């Protein structure tokens, strides 16, 4: 199912609905520091794309560009065919209004390294909050679905607990359920397991594998090579703000073509 990654044809016009994320020549600078120097990336619907790279290579920044938490300086990002952050009309770009950006973000779930659960709300409230506030669901229905989602991530018995009362692994699973409650088309994970104690990593990865099996399109920044090899449909190695190498995860991990990829993999394996 996952052998359809053909890097050579990445520039070919997208076959419409098939492509979920398409980034073209994405540039981003913070003041004088150019963090992204022309990123091209394509993720098809239902694919899991793993993003690897050394610290400071711009992985988080790129991920944050996809849901417009950061404004890009040049290039285009499309999610499900829709340009992110801008409207193109007559060859000109118009910035989207805040509410339009917010509407685009609703279709893109994000999971953070440090969970970022709302500490003043219970687990259930964390999951119910956004769908109800944003008028996607009635309160009763949202509660029911939240309970189902939490059950699915193995936290059906923690609905009334506060985030501070949970372990890191449990918090991260709540964060995943919270993102899923918005029924996203795409999920972004920024090092979801790197703030966790080693024995808690597995439970979060299991939830993510489950999600991948259900056909969720995912972009995962991770140092978990095992996860990339087992679940990933494509692997992208970034360094210094550019994509150094991309391809089938097993292929890239087994025989990296670039020296930089090789030395990085030698360190994390």
């Amino acid at each position, binding site marked *: 199912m996952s052998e359809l990654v053909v890097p050579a044809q990445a520039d070919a016009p997208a076959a419409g609905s098939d492509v979920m994320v398409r980034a073209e020549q994405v540039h981003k600078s913070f003041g004088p520091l150019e963090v992204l120097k022309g990123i091209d990336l394509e993720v098809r619907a239902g694919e899991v794309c793993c993003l690897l790279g050394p610290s400071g290579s711009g992985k988080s920044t790129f991920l944050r560009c996809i849901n417009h938490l950061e404004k890009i300086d040049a290039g285009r990002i499309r999610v499900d065919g829709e340009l992110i952050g801008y409207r193109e009309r007559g060859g000109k770009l118009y910035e989207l209004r805040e509410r339009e950006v917010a509407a685009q973000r609703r279709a893109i779930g994000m999971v953070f390294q440090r969970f970022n659960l709302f500490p*003043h709300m219970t687990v259930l409230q964390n999951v119910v909050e956004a769908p109800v506030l944003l008028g996607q669901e009635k309160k009763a229905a949202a509660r029911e679905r939240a309970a189902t989602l939490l059950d699915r991530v193995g936290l059906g018995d923690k609905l009334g607990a506060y985030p501070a009362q949970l372990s890191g692994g449990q918090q991260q699973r709540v964060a995943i359920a919270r993102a899923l409650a918005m029924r996203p088309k795409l999920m972004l994970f920024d090092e979801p397991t790197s703030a966790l104690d080693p024995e808690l990593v597995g439970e979060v990865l299991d939830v993510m594998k489950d999600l991948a099996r259900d056909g969720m399109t995912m972009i995962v920044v991770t140092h978990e090579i095992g996860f990339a090899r087992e679940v990933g449909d494509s692997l992208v190695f970034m360094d210094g703000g550019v994509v150094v190498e991309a391809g089938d995860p097993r292929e890239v991990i087994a025989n990296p073509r670039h020296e930089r990829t090789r030395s990085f993999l030698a360190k994390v394996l």
Partner: protein
Amino acid sequence: MKSDEATTVRARPEPIRAVPVRHPGRWVAVAVLAVLTAMFVHLLTTNDAFNWSFMVDKMFRPPIIEGLLRGTVLMTVSAMLIGITLGVVVAVMRLSDNPILRGVAWLYTWFFRAVPRLVLLAVFGNIGILWSRIEFGVPFDTQLGQLFGIDNLELRLFGFSSRDVLTGFMAGLLGLALSEAAYMAEIVRAGIQSVDPGQTEAAQALGMGRGQLLRRVVLPQAMRVIIPPTGNETIAMLKDTSLLLYVPVSVELFFQLDAVGKRTFQIFPMYVAACLWYLFLTSILLVGQYFLERHFGRGHGSAGRARLRLRGMNAETGGTPGKVEP
């Protein structure tokens, strides 16, 4: 076998019976303080100028109680309510992306924190000298009219006599509330900035707008930082209502006590009465503040409060036996 060993290990050593360190300095201090207290009591009871019976007789008279209820208590509550509301607005403006809003907010806090309250109140109380009427409409209307050759052009929407509206209570309220808003804006801003930026990001990533995430995610968490200094502000406000004497606001505690003192040539007893009244009122607020801070000091999801809520929630949903702690 093993229990024998345990008892010998656990056997309590003999309690310590040491001679405590002596503190001769403490006894000297107590003696000195006792003498000073005696001198103070002597002062209070033997000097006729205190005129205690006169003071007790006057300090509960109806005009004074009315001044206390309206000019002090009601004024404090109203000025704080307006001050907090406006303060949140100014704080949000100050943190906005819009440079104009930021600038206006900065100017506002700068002005109202730089001018002393007493001076501000005197200005608001006498604004009627400047304009007898306050009107809203197109600015520079007469001047603009002359440019186009129209004499006495007046484009006014509505207006009112400043002597009717901006006197006494309203002028005082405006002065106190506007100045309070400047201080509250700084407090609210500090509170908002104390919340982890990751919270805003998570809310944004879920698709919440700025207003929504502020209301539902950021402000509730900022409360922990905002509440304690707001208590202090309320106490300061209660005391500052005495400045209304300079507006002047006549239905006010200190104005009334001062007036009685001047009328009867018994100034000092009435000032003592003022001290006692303010001590009484601020003490009530201090008790309230103690409980408020104890409540909010428990912090996020800290065990006690969280468990209480958890219990409530389980009760509500029928509860899962075994999950609820006794």
